[in-house]
């Protein structure tokens, strides 16, 4: 996917989420930023270094976990971590300490002597991500790092990443799992068809694009025709499921809620449960991408 007019700046010591549908240009952007491919025009500045003119200098300061698996099939887990540290010129003593730290942090102790070729996809992914922390870096690119991981391993990885960011690391993170981005990212950019269509903090994106709220009300079984009672209320959407659940989706959901509560009160219909669903990053993502597709941008 060609990318065009990407204009991003990422603050250090933060986690920057890079989101987009399949084929939007995320991996192409990562390849450009990590100097695997060169742009046809434009500039890329990573950590104050011109990435087009001095790609090796950039690569010495970054870490990259690519989307596709990468491993040494003939090496054991411990050995592959150790050798990766050696490739990055990490001192022997430091390598030894880091291997132990990462085996423990990524729950790899039990499989430390297993060959990479014999690991499951999830185990191999954990080794791949752990391996990248063998060396020092200022910026880490994580391209869908949690693919193939179980929920526990996924949470462990995200928490480890958070810990490293607190110690000063900057992360450029892509994922399809939007609650991961919501959990992790200080700032997100959404890319579609090779162009950036939104950049902001998750909260600001919600304020900008997430005015619509969803409210759910559960009422007991009643002989009264609830839908008939609510007929007069307009400019909102009510779904009546099995006669006991009312779902409101509206930009003015509080106002609509008040009207419905009044009608229920007047008709002596008690409320069993009432919940307000917060806007999720996933909803924002869908809204922004759909708007972009509709406008042809």
């Amino acid at each position, binding site marked *: 996917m060609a990318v065009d007019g990407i204009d991003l700046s990422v603050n250090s010591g933060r986690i920057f989420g890079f989101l987009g549908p399949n084929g939007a240009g995320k991996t192409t952007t990562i*390849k450009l930023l*990590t*100097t*695997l*491919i060169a742009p046809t025009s434009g500039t890329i500045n990573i950590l104050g270094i011109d990435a087009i003119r001095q790609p*090796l200098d950039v*690569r*010495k300061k*970054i870490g*990259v976990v*690519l989307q*596709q*698996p*990468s*491993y*040494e*099939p*003939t*090496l054991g887990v411990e*050995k592959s971590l150790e*050798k990766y540290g*050696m*490739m*990055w*010129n990490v001192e022997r003593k430091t390598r030894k300490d880091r291997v132990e730290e990462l085996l423990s942090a990524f729950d790899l102790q039990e499989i430390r002597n297993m060959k990479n070729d014999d690991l499951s996809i999830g185990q191999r992914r954990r080794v791949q991500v752990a391996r990248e922390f063998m060396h020092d870096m200022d910026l880490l690119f994580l391209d869908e790092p949690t693919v193939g991981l179980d929920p526990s391993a996924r949470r462990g990885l995200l928490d480890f990443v958070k810990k490293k960011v607190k110690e000063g690391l900057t992360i450029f993170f892509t994922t399809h799992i939007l609650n991961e981005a919501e959990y992790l990212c200080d700032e997100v950019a959404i890319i579609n068809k090779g162009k950036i269509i939104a950049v902001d903090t998750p909260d600001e994106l919600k304020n900008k694009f997430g005015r619509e709220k969803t409210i759910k009300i559960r009422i007991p079984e009643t002989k009264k025709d609830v839908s008939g009672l609510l007929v007069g209320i307009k400019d909102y959407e009510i779904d009546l499921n099995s006669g006991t659940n009312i779902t409101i989706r509206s930009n003015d959901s509080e106002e609509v809620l008040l009207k419905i509560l009044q009608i229920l009160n007047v008709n002596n219909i008690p409320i069993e449960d009432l919940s307000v669903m917060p806007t999720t990053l996933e909803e924002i993502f869908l809204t922004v991408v759909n708007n972009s597709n509709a406008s042809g941008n």
Partner: protein
Amino acid sequence: MHPVIRLVNRNLTISLNKGFLIWQVIFPLIYIFVAGFAYTALIHSVPFGNKSLDYPAFIASGMIGFNIMNSTLISGIIIWNDRRHGMFEQILVGPFTRAHYILSNIYTIGIVGLISAALITAVGYPLFFKSVEFNFYTIPLVVFASVTGSILFGSIASIISTRLQSSEGFNVVINTVFLFFAFVSTAFYPAEGTPEPLSTAFYLNPLTYLVDVVRAGIFGNFSTFVGIEMIVLIALALILFTIATKLLSKLEL
């Protein structure tokens, strides 16, 4: 530590597994000690320049060249595995350039080629010691053959590994090509006395030149023809190395 040395260290670690070592040591030993002595009943002696060699001595010296060629398979295997298992891209987003990667492969096969040659020379020495004629160019010729042969055959293995996509294709092509090199050469039998088309085919094969140079060093039979063979080996190695480097440099990520 220089990036190329770090990559060579890594290449040797991932390549020198039990299977490879067995292949590199046991396989030639079987040829030298089983085929060598078994065929003695059929081949009493092999004419070689102005002298006559017994067959075990002839095949043991041929196996030095054969083993140099075989050891270069690891170049193709390293590149192939790196592409297949994502390590090629991973290395290139690390503190390395493509030039580092290419040079590390050349050094790796050079080291493995030299060690293989030394190993088979040591093992085969009892068989050809009667015919050995040590002189000041014995070691330089064997080292020349090891280094040039490693670069030449390593480049062929690299070219194959960059051109093929499927693992089945890679295995079939590399085994077929190396099988041709091994058996359509003078490593196992002399060119003299074979049917004309076959002896011509022998001299279309760089392994023949490599083996001739090794034997010239060991048996003190250096001649103008061997000198020409050395020039051909250098030229071929340079051409193939240039092609392999270009293909690796252009390999899409």
